[in-house]
């Protein structure tokens, strides 16, 4: 699987954000789907995360302004959901399922291995910015446990060997 790396905008570059014409076009299209502008918050945030890699306060301000909400309201929404990054993420975010089936079908061993191989704990990034470890809850693929989601893609039926292979390939693509 060719997982695309995240290209995270630097904090300075998105400290203040103006939504360009292309984004505005997408937003206008999105707004047509809902009877309120507020309902477009989640899809617009996804749009911004695709574009910038993460959601900075500058992004939140721009989204709030565009949709007529207070920035605090938008930040409240962003912080409720686990998938919006509020700090620049690594190129590959390894979301490891820690719930029952995965945990008891080799998931715990994967976690130990990852921590050892990468030298980081959950919530941390490797110094070279390549990998980030995130503990997540059930990914809805329990029949193919253990599962790790890397950026947008599901990697299933893993063991230490196959996971190592995946990471090797991703790291080699630098």
């Amino acid at each position: 699987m060719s997982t695309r790396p995240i290209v995270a905008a630097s904090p300075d570059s998105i400290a203040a954000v103006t939504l360009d014409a292309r984004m505005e076009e997408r937003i206008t299209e999105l707004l047509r789907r809902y009877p309120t502008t507020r309902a477009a918050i989640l899809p617009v945030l996804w749009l911004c995360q695709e574009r910038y890699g993460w959601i900075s306060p500058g992004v939140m301000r721009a989204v709030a302004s565009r949709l007529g909400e207070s920035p605090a309201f938008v930040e409240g929404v962003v912080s409720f959901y686990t998938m919006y990054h509020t700090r620049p993420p690594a190129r590959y975010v390894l979301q490891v399922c820690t719930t029952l089936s995965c945990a008891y079908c080799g998931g715990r061993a994967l976690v130990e291995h990852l921590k050892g191989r990468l030298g980081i704990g959950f919530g941390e990034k490797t110094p070279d910015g390549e990998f980030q470890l995130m503990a997540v809850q059930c990914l809805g693929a329990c029949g193919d446990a253990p599962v790790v989601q890397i950026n947008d893609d599901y990697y299933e039926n893993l063991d230490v060997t196959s996971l190592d292979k995946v990471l090797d390939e991703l790291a080699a693509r630098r």
Partner: protein
Amino acid sequence: MPKLTIDGRTVEVAAGTNLIEAARTAGIEIPYFCYHPYLRVVGQCRICMVEIEGQPRLAVACATPAAEGMVVRSESSERAKEAREAVMEFLLANHPLDCPVCDQAGECLLQDHSMEEQRATFTTGMSETRRTFPGYERRLIGPHVIQNQNRCIHCSRCIRFTQEISETSALTYKSRGNSTFIDTFDGKPFQDPMSACAADVCPVGALTVREFRFRKRAWKLKSTPSVCPGCSIGCNIFVQHHERVVYRFSPRENSAINATWLCDHGRFLAESLNQQTYLSPQRRVAGQPASASWAEALRALADELRGTRSLRVVASANLSNEELYLARELFGRHLKGEIVVPVFPGEPRRMKNGKGEWRTSTDAHPNSLGARRLGLATVDGEGLARLLGRAADLTVILDPAAHPYLAGDEALQLLRAGTLIAFARSQHPVADVARWLLPTPSLASNEGTFTSSPGVVQRFAPAFAQPGAVHRTATGAMSPACPTIASPWGPPGEARALWIVLTALARELGVATLDLASPADVFALMVRTEESFAGLEWEALGGRGQQESYRERQHVG
């Protein structure tokens, strides 16, 4: 009008009334945290659970409208009491034992309800596993509000307030589950003209007011009903005080004007009421001030008034209706003097009432409309300058704060010509020019009425009679945000409310009709003689004269 039974008591309430209010009508208090009569119902805290006959599950009283024939059990229900006890236990599991150092003690809903609901079966004890929020335990989030997130019980009142009432949506929840906390956008300062109301609605000490921090225990405060002097809207307040020091204003419920809210501007005028520079009548002799007795002062003033050929009086829209009436009658009618009320525009202020309607005011005075209705001439700065520019023997300034022009060099220069009698409370340049300086106390020691901009006549009661000098002690490291504690060191001074002086002058001058014993009497006279006061009753104006302890005041959420 559905009729229902609560704990065996039958009541009839308006359709749509929730069970908490219905129970209150029946004299039964159902505990609540997240419910607030002026905020949207969310049913989050889960402590108001009651048993409703015919329903297998307990219901939340705040979200259940009263229905005809409903049989509700609150205190008489074992299940409801069990449920409340459990909710109490849940809340106390992570709540820090901060009461000894928490400002909210004494007016804390968590304290109040835990006294009711706590039983010996609690297993939380002194839990070492409380979740905490490092960096959020004493955080100044705005100019007036301090946050301690560890104490938060997640009732969302503060958030709902900024969303529904002040409409700034400045506060939000962040994160979720048990790590949810309250914050502003990006940790930026809490910008909201009514920010301190968020601390008011907070049922615990998670949001507290900086200006009040560590200054006085709530149960020591006496509450005196009054009216905010910050603008012409006339929000109802309690002046909360102890030993002749005003500690804070807190909102007094008035659904038509301010619901249970106060804006920061008006609220934080409270401290200014403690400025009492002048404590006794002063006569300026050969450029030097010298104290005099009131007897002396009144005699001298009467002499001046009797003997003057031309009299002009600068009144003020900060004065009560009673004082303005007495001034108009005494100085205007009997002594044939010219009397004006200076007005100047202030910053726009807004207040939302209990029906969700906004009211705006750009008038910084509490009684401009009162002055106009009494037929007094209002002038702006230029008009005032013109008045002072014309020569006059005797000028009486009833309130130097009436207009900023009076503090300027030009005004002082003009006032030097002729004799000046000034009534003042706090330091003002006219004191150096006045032949006689009479000390008047603040709103806290006065009694009377204001007419707010919507035209409502409202009473305010006196909190204490004679303010003294207020000494400030530095709090040092205890509370850097609130650098001083005010304490009444020094004997009570001799400041007297203006209406007392005016009626005494009337007596001196032989104007029997104005020799009245109380503002109520003045008011009664106005009712008889003034069209704008016809039909009003002093007793019915709200703001009872006697002081109430903090517990008896109307429940402000």
